[in-house]
């Protein structure tokens, strides 16, 4: 009874002009053109977007959860990267 799944595509939508595309979910489709059609039908039935990207899911490389500390904790001790690190006189502190 089962037929093999069509390839999976991740869907990204730009909701308004000036905003970045944002991941909204995935669709199965035979190819990229068909993925766009399916994404349109599934994710933009109510003016949710002005542009759609589809990307084959198997082409995405993701960071592993185990790498979380190595990748993301170092900036925590680099507080000098934040503007609040620099103490300025009140007269110029709006800078």
């Amino acid at each position: 009874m089962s037929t093999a799944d069509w390839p999976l595509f991740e869907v990204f939508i730009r909701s308004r002009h000036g905003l970045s595309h944002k991941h909204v979910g995935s669709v199965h489709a035979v190819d990229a053109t068909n993925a766009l059609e399916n994404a349109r039908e599934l994710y933009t039935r109510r003016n949710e977007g002005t542009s759609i990207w589809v990307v084959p899911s198997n082409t995405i490389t993701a960071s592993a959860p185990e790498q979380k500390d190595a990748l993301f904790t170092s900036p925590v001790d680099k507080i000098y990267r934040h503007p609040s690190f620099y103490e300025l006189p009140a007269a110029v502190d709006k800078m």
Partner: protein
Amino acid sequence: MYAQMVETGVKTVKDRSEMGAEEQAFMARIDEESKIEPQDWMPDAYRKTLVRQISQHAHSEIIGMQPEGNWLTRAPTIKRKLQLAAKIQDECGHGQYLYSAAETLGVGRDELLDQLHTGKAKYSSIFNYPTLNWADMGAVGWLVDGAAIVNQVILQRTSYGPYSRAMVRICKEESFHQRQGYEILLTMMEKGTQAQKDMVQDAINRLWWPSLMMFGPNDDSSPNTAQSLEWKIKRKTNDELRQMFIDQTIPQLEVLGCTAPDPDLKWNEATGHYDFGEINWEEFFNVIKGNGPCNKQRLAKKVNAHEQGAWVREAAMAHATKQQAKAAAKVA
């Protein structure tokens, strides 16, 4: 609730001291309300429970198109027909969002569909009742979607990220469903003939109890609830959700000028909630087991649609493969 009896495979909730380091870290994240994402470590039973719950939920959305599809060609006006078609299309979309979320747990969609088609997977008992008159379209939108909303609003806070995000998306679309249903009933009650008003009351009489059953068994006969709450897959018990639904629905029932088929239904000043009568659990378990009025018909229709559509799926895939070969030949 669209997933009524989700097996966790767990007999008793484990004490934290019995857990290994990985599981303790996992539970700490659950406790601090951080979402679990697909690549994160999770207990096997958590993953399996989620697959069961999300796919049951997805199957319910998909099978749920049938009772309403039944009236699509007989809607009284073109406006009602368009509204109903839009709602049914949304439900199909909800099924897709949910299958998508389930797939992030490492199951294939064909596998999930197979489980539905072979009767291994369940869907909500409510969709095994027939829709006998046009007022049923109103009552389904108002009561069935209304009950689903109570469940789904809470599930936006479920601990698994993709499930929670699917719920947020679904909740944005549900309010239209409930309002269009209620408006159907209101129009019939305000402008209808006596016969049409009687149809409204008849629809409520038939769908009232099955709607209450959507939330699943009573808490004391729901052994999996404790574990699901501990994992924050569920955020409230079946009885809590059912009570919320009843409390918010009775005032709406009164605006319609209709009654519920429950002689025990009355406001309880002391508790601040409505008291209500005992659900016919024998009927509930019977429908769950596959012996409801429409179980066989619903499943047969779904299987038939899948099988009859096979050539379309195959043709589309063959076309795509040919196009890719052509494109590759051009490059070479």
